[in-house]
């Protein structure tokens, strides 16, 4: 379960930064909100890059399928990226209502996405990938930078 553990921990870390930024925005502390938001978006985008450049290709090579779950996950990454852009605009404009509203959409979207990955995709990766491939993929993911 090394893939599941590593990736789940990353999801949880992103949630924590996101929640900190949301709370700061609600309090009107925009400097702190910006700090939390930048950390959240950088970590989320790095996490997506790890999946799209290392984990998904390894899964696709093993299963011979590039049209199934990984394609859906890539599509959902694009939805999240588009929301990150909108959140950045609201943050820049210090528009509290818009920021908090977009936070709602982002959280539901992201949590649905994370659940699918954690309950199905990561579990499948841990099951189908040979242990040496898993170790190798994990090492490569740890080296990915934004």
């Amino acid at each position, binding site marked *: 379960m090394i893939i599941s553990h590593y990736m789940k921990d990353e999801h949880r870390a992103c*949630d*924590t930064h996101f*929640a900190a930024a*949301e*709370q700061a925005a*609600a309090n009107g502390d925009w400097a702190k909100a910006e700090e939390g938001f930048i950390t959240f978006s950088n970590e989320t985008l790095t996490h997506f890059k790890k999946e799209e450049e290392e984990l998904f290709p390894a899964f696709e090579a093993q299963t011979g399928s590039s049209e*199934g*779950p990984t394609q*859906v996950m890539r*599509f959902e990454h694009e*939805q999240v990226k588009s929301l990150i852009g909108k959140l950045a605009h609201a943050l820049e404009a210090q528009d509290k*209502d*818009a920021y*908090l*509203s*977009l936070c*709602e*959409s982002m*959280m*539901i*979207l992201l*949590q*649905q996405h994370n*659940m*699918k990955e954690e*309950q*199905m995709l990561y579990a499948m990766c841990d099951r189908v990938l040979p242990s040496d491939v898993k170790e190798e993929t994990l090492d490569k993911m740890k080296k990915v930078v934004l």
Partner: protein
Amino acid sequence: MFSQNGLSLDQAPPLSVVFRFFFTGSIFGMLAGVLILFYQADIFDAHSVAAVTLTHTLTLGVMLSFMFAALFQMLPVIAGVTLKNPIKKANALQYPFILGVLALLFAFNLSAPWLFGIASFLLGGSVLFISFTMLKNILTLTHHSASSKGMLTALISLVLVVILALYLTASLASFTEATYYTAIKEAHYSFGLFGWVALLIISISFQVIEMFYVTPPYPTLVTKYLPNTLLGLLLLSTVVSFFTPLIWVVTDVLLILLLCGYALVTLKRLTQKKRPLTDATVLFWRMGLGSLLLSMLFMGLTLSYDIESIKSLSYLFFTSFSLSIVFAMFYKIVPFLTWFHLNSQGYFTAPMMHEVIHPKTAKKHLYIHIATVAIFAVSIFISELTLLAGLLTMLSFGWMSYQIIHAYLLYIKTQKTGEKFDMNMGNG
């Protein structure tokens, strides 16, 4: 294999499918308010026609409609079940269902056998059809989550509720001899409230509490065993009750313990949420779970004291439990779906969730809902207040109907006038 798990791009059901059942439920809710004004204090006599009519308006017309909205929405998202032709299925369910509920309500009041016959045909046919369709889809899943397993147990309970109800309506219409009427009625009521309503809320909460509020997951002990234990307990009690009706006392004690345990575990999760903001939906959840605890407390008291007002309080707080949680889900689902569908269709001008329903609007509904439940509780003792409770019920469901209409009109308006991302321009 993933497509079987419903992980398709087109995973969200059409807006109209979910909205129509929320709308139907809220209209029946307003009807419940009218019935309270009409029957007044008679509703607190559990054996009266007034109580039976109001109970079925709330459980069938309101709750079952809301539960259908939740199932159509949640099955693809949290269980990975994609229902084919959802609009056709929703049509096949909605119209016979509404007519069936109305026929049943009239049948209770007119004691007309033919109306019981029509109600049985329409409700039995439509509810069993959708239950079996959903059950079949869940059973073909290759990868189960705690929620999908829980939904399975809830749907099995719904099927049993309907089958038991068919026996009761056949007895009332004098088609059969009512030999087992009392035992079947007890089982019908228990499967309805604890097997169907409570189990469905429990199964959905396993995933939405974590998803909406970013809390730690439920303990595996709860997610793995609670739904099966509840269903098993109800099945066993029903069988045993034909020989020893007193078994329901033991069952009630166990139900109280299990449901209080669930409420406390969930309340604890809500205190551990990572998102520190507390919006109306969190308060609706807390109110719902608090109501469940109160309902179980009064149910416990009825085991020792046979007092009608204590029974009424137990029913009232159980209703508050289920409605509060429906409202909590409603204020997340409706704004999210409106935004999600328009955003996925490429509209730049898709309204944000707060523009569909503002959190302040949800909070106002919370205050109306709290006032409704409080006035109801007092009106059990001061019957003159029943009138006010009826008016507040109408206001509460009227508020909800207005939000659905507003969201839908906004959706249509954006589709007609909104600016859309042009694929050709994007390439240029």
